[in-house]
C-alpha cells in the first residue's frame, strides 16, 4: 500500500511558506495560459458567430476576404435569379454589400482607429435574422443615415444615437443601434450601399460581396452548382459561417501561438519554482523519508508519494490560476482584424474546457517539477538519513 495521502496534505500545510512560491508560480502561469486561450476563443467565437448556416456569401473567385473581392452589378442581377435563394414579398433575399474603412476616434484614447463601414440593402435584417435594432430605427434608403453596432457605439466617439458624423464626402446621422449578438457585425457601421459608395467615390456598379439567405441550409450546393457553372460568373460561394470561421483562423493561431510561447516561458519558471519547493521538501524531510523506507515502504512508494505532493501543490496553483482569470470572462477588448484592417471588439471566453486544460497544464508542471526531487527522495541512503537532526 502507498504512503497515506494525509501525510502529503499535512506536510504541504505545515510547510505552506515554501509551498506558496510554487503555488504562486503555477497559478500565474495557468492564469496567463487560460487568458490567452480565452482571448483566442473569444476572437474566434465573435467571428464565427457572425456567420449563419442559412446564408451564403458570394465573392469573386480566388478572393481571400471581402476586402479583396469585387462583384459587378451585372453579376448581382444573374445571382438574384439563381436557384436556392430564399424569396420574400419583395423578391430574392440578398444584399450586395460594399465594405469600406473609415478612421473614427476611439473613446478611450481619442486616436483614430479603422471602423468597418458596410453598405447594405434595406432588407439586410431579413437576411441576417439574428441582428436586431435595439435603439432607434433602420436607416431609410436614399438618406444619409447610419445604423451602428452596439460595440462600435461603445468604442468610438460620435456614434451615439442621434449624432452626426462626417464620413467620406457626406455627413451622416446615426438613426439606430443594432445588436448582432456579440458577433463581428457589432463592431460595424451600416448604411445604404449606394450612398456609401457615392460618398467614397466608388463605382455604384461594384459590390465587394453578395450575401444571400438560402431557401434552406441544404440549398447551398444547388446555389453553388448553379453559380459556378454559369460562364458569365466568376465567383466563389461559401456558407457564411464557414467564411467567418476561416477568417478567424489566422488571428486565432497568432494569439494561441503567442500565448502559448508566453505560457511556455512562464511554465519553465514555474517548473523551477516547483523543483525548488520539492527539493527543499525532500531535504527537510530526509529523516522522515528514511524512516518510512526503514519501515518497509519501497522506493516506488516514496516516488509516488512525492509526485502526489507535487501534483497537489500544482493542483492548488492551477485552481487559483483558474479562479484568478474567471473575472475576465465576458470582458470586452478589441484588436485589429487583419483580414479587414478594422478594429474588432470581442470578449474573453473562458469555457469549462479551458479551465480543465489549465488544470492539466498545472499538473504537467507539477509532474515535471516533482519528478527529480521524488527520485532523489527515494534514492538517498537510508541508514545515514535516519540519524539526521
Amino acid at each position, binding site marked *: 500500500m502507498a504512503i497515506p495521502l*494525509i501525510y502529503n496534505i499535512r506536510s504541504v500545510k505545515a510547510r505552506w511558506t515554501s509551498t506558496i512560491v510554487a503555488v504562486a508560480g503555477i497559478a500565474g502561469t495557468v492564469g496567463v495560459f487560460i487568458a490567452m486561450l480565452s482571448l483566442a476563443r473569444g476572437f474566434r467565437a465573435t467571428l464565427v458567430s457572425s456567420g449563419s448556416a442559412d446564408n451564403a456569401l458570394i465573392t469573386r473567385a480566388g478572393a481571400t476576404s471581402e476586402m479583396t473581392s469585387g462583384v459587378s452589378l451585372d453579376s448581382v442581377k444573374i445571382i438574384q435569379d439563381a436557384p436556392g435563394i430564399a424569396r420574400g414579398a419583395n423578391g430574392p433575399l440578398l444584399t450586395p454589400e460594399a465594405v469600406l474603412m473609415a478612421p473614427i476616434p476611439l473613446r478611450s484614447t481619442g486616436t483614430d482607429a479603422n471602423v468597418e463601414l458596410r453598405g447594405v440593402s434595406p432588407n439586410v435584417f431579413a437576411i441576417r435574422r439574428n441582428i436586431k435594432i435595439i435603439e432607434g430605427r433602420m436607416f431609410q434608403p436614399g438618406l444619409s443615415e447610419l445604423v451602428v453596432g452596439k460595440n462600435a457605439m461603445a468604442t468610438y466617439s460620435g456614434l451615439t444615437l442621434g449624432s452626426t458624423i462626417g464620413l467620406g464626402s457626406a455627413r451622416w446621422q446615426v438613426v439606430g443601434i443594432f445588436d448582432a449578438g456579440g458577433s463581428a457585425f457589432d463592431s460595424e457601421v451600416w448604411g445604404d450601399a449606394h450612398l456609401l459608395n457615392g460618398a467614397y467615390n466608388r463605382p455604384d456598379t461594384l459590390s465587394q460581396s453578395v450575401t444571400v439567405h438560402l431557401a434552406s441550409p441544404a440549398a447551398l450546393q444547388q446555389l453553388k452548382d448553379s453559380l459556378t457553372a454559369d460562364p458569365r460568373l466568376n465567383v466563389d460561394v461559401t456558407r457564411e459561417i464557414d467564411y467567418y470561421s476561416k477568417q478567424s483562423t489566422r488571428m486565432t493561431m497568432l494569439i494561441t501561438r503567442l500565448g502559448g510561447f508566453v505560457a511556455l516561458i512562464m511554465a519553465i519558471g514555474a517548473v523551477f519554482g516547483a523543483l525548488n519547493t520539492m527539493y527543499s521538501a525532500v531535504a527537510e524531510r530526509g529523516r522522515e523519508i528514511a*524512516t518510512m523506507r526503514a*519501515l518497509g*515502504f519501497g*522506493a516506488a512508494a516514496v516516488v509516488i508519494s512525492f509526485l502526489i505532493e507535487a501534483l497537489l501543490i500544482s493542483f492548488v496553483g492551477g485552481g487559483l490560476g483558474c479562479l484568478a482569470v474567471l473575472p475576465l470572462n465576458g470582458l470586452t477588448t478589441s484588436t485589429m482584424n487583419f483580414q479587414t484592417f478594422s478594429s474588432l471588439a470581442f470578449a474573453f471566453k473562458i469555457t469549462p474546457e479551458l479551465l480543465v486544460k489549465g488544470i492539466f497544464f498545472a499538473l504537467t508542471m507539477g509532474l515535471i517539477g516533482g519528478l527529480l526531487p521524488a527520485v532523489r527522495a527515494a534514492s538517498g541512503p537510508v*541508514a545515514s538519513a535516519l540519524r539526521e537532526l
Partner: protein
Amino acid sequence: MIRVDGTGKSNSLIQVRGLDKTYRRGGEEIQVLQRLNLDVDKGDFVAFMGPSGSGKTTLLNLLGGLDVPTHGSITVAGDEITHMSGNKLTQWRARHVGFIFQMYNLLPVLTAFQNVELPLLLTKLSKSDRRKHVETALGVVGLADRMNHYPRQLSGGQEQRVAIARAIVADPTFLLCDEPTGDLDRKSADEIMELIHRLVTEHGKTVLMVTHDPVVATRADTTLHLEKGVLVEGKTSHESVMAGGAA
C-alpha cells in the same frame, strides 16, 4: 543463547557469520567490522556497547537490512538477507524488523494512531483489523488515551512509547533499538527500558539494542562489546556498570 564465536546452533533466529564492513572515506579504507560472528535465539535480549565509532550502529543497520556488508552473511529465521535485492530487502524489513530510534523518528504531521498504523499499511489487513492492532499496540505501551495526539503534543518518553508501539504493531521477528533512551531523562529512560523488558519477558520479543548507557544495558540479558570490529563476550551487564561505562 547468545554466542559470538560462530559456533551457535544452526537454527538460531539470527545467525551472523564472518561479517566485514569497510567504508571508503577520502581514498582511505576504514574497516568497521571484521569477521564478526553472532548467534541470537528467539526471546533473547542483547545490548551492544562500545565507544563511538566502534561500529555499533553499523552492525544494527546491517542486521536491519538498511546496509549491506562487504563480506559475510546474515541469516534471519532461515532467510539469508545479505544477497537480497533492494526491493526484496524492503519487503523483508516490513515483515521482520521493528525499529526503535534514539530520536523516535515519528512523522510529525501524523497522529500517534496514524504513526503506529504505518507498518500495517504494508500488510493486507482490513481497516478495522488495522484499528484493532493499533489500539492493542498503543494499549501495550500505555498510550491508548493519546492516540489522536500529534508527536508535538507528547513528551519525549511518550513519543518513544509511540515509536515502540509502531515497532511492535506488525509483530516483527525482532526489534532493533538504536540508543532508545539516548534522548530521554533518567525517569523516562527507566520507563522505556521497563517497557522493552516487558516486551521480552511477557511477549517473547527478541530485542537487539545499541546503547552507550551501562545502566540501560543492565536490562538486557547479555551485553556484548564491540572492540576493534569484533564482538567480545565476557562482561555481564552488571560488570559493565561497575567498570564505569563503555569499554
